[in-house]
């Protein structure tokens, strides 16, 4: 099971349904705006954040942990003497707020001697007092703990009946109550909900000491508890059942228990070149790493050089208007408004109304992801609304919007894609992932691997990982299923920045085929 970071402090369940009156938040924000202005700030924004998480974690027949956390405080960002300063505090009386605002200005002034040029902010009109709420059907925090525990213990039991030796299952709920105010005249109140049901299964062959794992095929998603109410139309039947928009955790666990056993005796892959047919439950992560990150403008410009890295998609490639990121089938769109996505908000964390734009059009790089102090570099007179901070205590910076591969325009099913493959692998679910600091060379694993022989699924494989180069890979795209197969995948934990911050982001796509991809065998022996 991957580490589940518990951010914030635990509280009792009833407090999860409370909200802070926007009038009180406006009052607090004005204290900060006025204090910073009085000390010489030429721009100030304030984020008052109440970040609520709930974790329900079980293993086999036991409840391991039920934790409710709350993180509440204020982050103040200023420009003074042309440079940025930031201070954050959880002491939210007038004195605590004013002191933090003054400290932010003092830091900006101290650092201004290290600037090569002053910050240039794209103009942004104030929206006055506005609000935005995620359009959820059922607030997951309102669902009784007992119902959640019963679901997870049922999932565990189903997986173990199927053949699993161990299972950890969890529900991870998020509610971000964010208030933004700035000297531009915006006071924006937003309510964002996310949910991630997941399980992690292990099966062991005691005599050989071999073990295999199978993770759930769910995705973190920007929805309420309705995500766990899958209807027949939300299921895609195939060699394994896949889920579109809603998720049947119990059904997936039953299948996983059987599949994890099957993996132990599955055929180990013969390394070589294969066509790969990638399900959206897998491909979202390849899109994230090879399309999402290299089009972040801060990486392109060098602001992430010391940690996450830079990007091979340099400005000259964009300026040329003819850089073949992929072939003509490849259309990639950035979108901060897509319904049900993790990145959907009304306004970003510097008060910019969110939208949608093309990043790669018919294979050509046409745009990046930018925020207010970068927009002028692209000749834009407005930000693209990509600013985000993971907490009130973190400074906001450029983060990835939802970045999605558009489905094929012609009617095409998954079977149609598989039919055309002579020697290939059908990959379902995300696994191991790694990519270099300029986003050229990557390697991905998965959860389920099926051999494709002469247009047909021939059985399960194991020990599979593929390696490629981003531009070669997207130019080897040989077919994308149509809109009816389009689904979202995503992560709660996209890491970037120093100090490191996590961001939640979705990536949509339909099943896609790539030709001639290098596949390695990952099996090794120790001792």
């Amino acid at each position, binding site marked *: 099971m991957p580490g589940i970071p518990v951010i914030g*402090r635990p509280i009792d369940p009833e407090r999860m349904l409370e909200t802070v009156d926007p009038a009180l938040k406006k009052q607090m924000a004005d204290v900060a705006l006025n204090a910073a202005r009085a000390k010489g700030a030429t721009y100030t924004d304030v984020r008052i954040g109440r970040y609520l998480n709930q974790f329900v974690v079980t293993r086999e027949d*036991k409840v391991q942990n039920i934790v409710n956390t709350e993180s509440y405080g204020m982050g103040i960002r200023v420009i003074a003497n042309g440079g*940025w300063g930031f201070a954050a505090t959880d002491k939210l009386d007038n004195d605590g707020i004013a002191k933090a605002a003054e400290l932010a200005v003092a830091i900006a002034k101290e650092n201004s*001697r*290290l600037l090569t040029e002053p910050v240039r902010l794209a103009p942004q009109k104030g929206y006055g007092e506005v609000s935005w709420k995620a359009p959820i059907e059922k607030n997951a925090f309102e669902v009784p703990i007992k119902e959640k*525990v019963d679901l997870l213990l049922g999932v565990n039991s189903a997986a173990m009946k199927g053949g699993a030796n161990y299972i950890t299952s969890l529900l991870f709920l998020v509610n971000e109550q964010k208030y933004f105010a700035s000297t531009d005249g915006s006071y924006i109140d937003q309510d964002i909900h996310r949910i991630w049901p997941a399980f992690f299964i292990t099966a062991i062959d*005691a005599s050989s000491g071999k073990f295999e794992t199978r993770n759930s095929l769910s995705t973190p998603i920007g929805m309420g508890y309705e995500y766990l109410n899958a209807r027949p139309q939300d299921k895609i039947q195939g060699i394994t059942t896949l889920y579109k928009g809603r998720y049947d955790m119990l059904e997936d666990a039953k299948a996983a228990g059987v599949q994890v056993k099957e993996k132990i005796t599955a055929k180990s892959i013969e390394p070589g070149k294969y066509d790969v047919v990638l399900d959206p439950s897998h491909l979202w992560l390849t899109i994230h790493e090879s399309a999402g990150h290299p089009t972040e403008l801060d990486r392109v410009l060098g602001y992430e*050089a010391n940690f996450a890295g830079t990007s091979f998609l340099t400005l000259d490639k964009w300026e040329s208007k003819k850089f073949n990121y992929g072939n003509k089938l490849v259309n990639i769109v950035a979108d901060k408004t897509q319904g049900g996505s993790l990145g959907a908000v009304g306004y970003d964390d510097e008060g910019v109304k969110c939208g949608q734009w093309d990043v790669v059009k018919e294979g050509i790089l046409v745009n990046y992801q930018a925020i207010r102090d970068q927009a002028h570099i692209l000749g834009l007179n407005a930000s693209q609304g990509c600013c985000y901070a993971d907490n009130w*205590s973190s400074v906001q910076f450029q983060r990835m919007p939802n970045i999605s591969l558009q489905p094929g325009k012609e009617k095409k099913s998954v079977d149609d894609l598989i039919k055309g493959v002579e020697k290939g692998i059908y990959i379902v679910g995300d696994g191991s992932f790694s990519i270099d600091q300029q986003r050229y060379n990557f390697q991905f694993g998965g959860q389920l691997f099926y051999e494709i022989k002469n247009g047909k699924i021939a059985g399960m494989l194991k020990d599979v990982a593929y390696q490629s180069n981003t531009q070669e890979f997207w130019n080897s795209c040989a077919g994308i299923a149509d809109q009816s197969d389009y689904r979202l995948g995503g992560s709660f934990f996209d890491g970037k920045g120093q100090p490191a911050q996590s961001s939640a982001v979705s990536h949509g796509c339909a099943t896609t085929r790539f030709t001639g991809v290098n596949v390695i065998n990952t099996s090794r*022996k120790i001792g």
Partner: protein
Amino acid sequence: MAILTKEEAKALMQKALSYSKADECEVNLTGTDSGNIRYARNSVSTSGRISQSSLVVSSAYGKKSGVATINEFDDASLEKVVRRSEELAQLAPENPEYVSILGPQTYADAINFIPATAAITPKLRADAVAQSLQITKENKAIGAGFWEDTNGFSAMMNSKGLFAYNASTNVNFSITVRTEDGKGSGWATRGYNDVNKMDTGKVTKISTDKAVKSATAKAIEPGKYTVILEPAAVAVLLERIFGGLDARQADEGRSFLSMPGGKTRLGEKLVDERVNIYSDPLNPDLPTNTWTGDGRPQEKISWIEKGVVKNLSYSRYWAEKKGVKAIPGPDSAIMQGGTKTLEELIAGTKKGILVTRLYYIRDVDPQSLLLTGLTRDGTFYIENGKILYPVKNFRFNESPVIMLNNLEEIGITERIVSEESNNNYLLPPLKVRDFTFTSLSDAV
């Protein structure tokens, strides 16, 4: 109130415990003041200061427990948070793995708090960055770096009379330097408890030198090579072993430390007999806290001795079930070094690759602890004891366990920061044969 003294923390926690009506009650109190400054393109970008504190109260009735937290510390708030944790405990399902809280323990006095680090000002941070930028600019190179200092305390107390307090400080600094044409990139990092040991100019010089020397790298075929891994590259591989020492995972058969038939590698030879790995909270070069969050003392523990797995870590529940001492996992780790410098390791190498840094490390197979990732910021070809030229970066697929079986030589241990986890370690450079590079990367 971010930082409290031992006496102030004790008084506050005693007050909180005085409100408890549960069978057992335990409180953990923490506070941190942290500051950072970040720069890129030879110019400061973002920086800030964050102040936070919190009190966590755990109450238990039998095997039912509840947790609640607050960051207000007046009497009414303290009583409220204790009541709330008691209400949650009464609502919670019974946890069969709940273990009763510990009684009073004896802890060594920690040595990881340095007043000078706690007194860092915005001016000191800006001066440290100015010193670094002077070097990058003089060399017509482009610097991107990050400085982060923390001053914090943690304390705990419970209804069985346990009390613990620890103050600590740390400062980490790292810098990537790139040549103006983007063809060369170098990197270096250091971390200390004492800010007076941090020399941003010296670290920047190392990084700049790597950048200049790594420009215009040649491509050589991937394959199995003898490598010299600098301590920062060793850190990101070995910390997967340090973090995988859990006895329960091994006993359950789902760890690289598991063996067929339900056995584990505890007491078995795992790696080369020259490998000795231990943790020691009182090591003067890498001091850490002397107790864990559940009140167990952190002591000097040998994890791998002469290549044999000497100890595994246990949760209190698993130790009780197995009837063994509940040794907590290490806060950090130390690998015993040899006597050779990095330069001497290079001088003794007929053919090999020098690796400055490994990046984007991910588990590929938990059974063999196979990891993948890439070289970055200074990869060089060595022949007949000399660095001949820079080479293009590689992707590797290798297990640190296999790597420690293919050990050729161990260099002198130094303190280093893992860029994957931000943890500090004391580790040597290692010379290893048959390290597996599986493909080339165009990344600089």
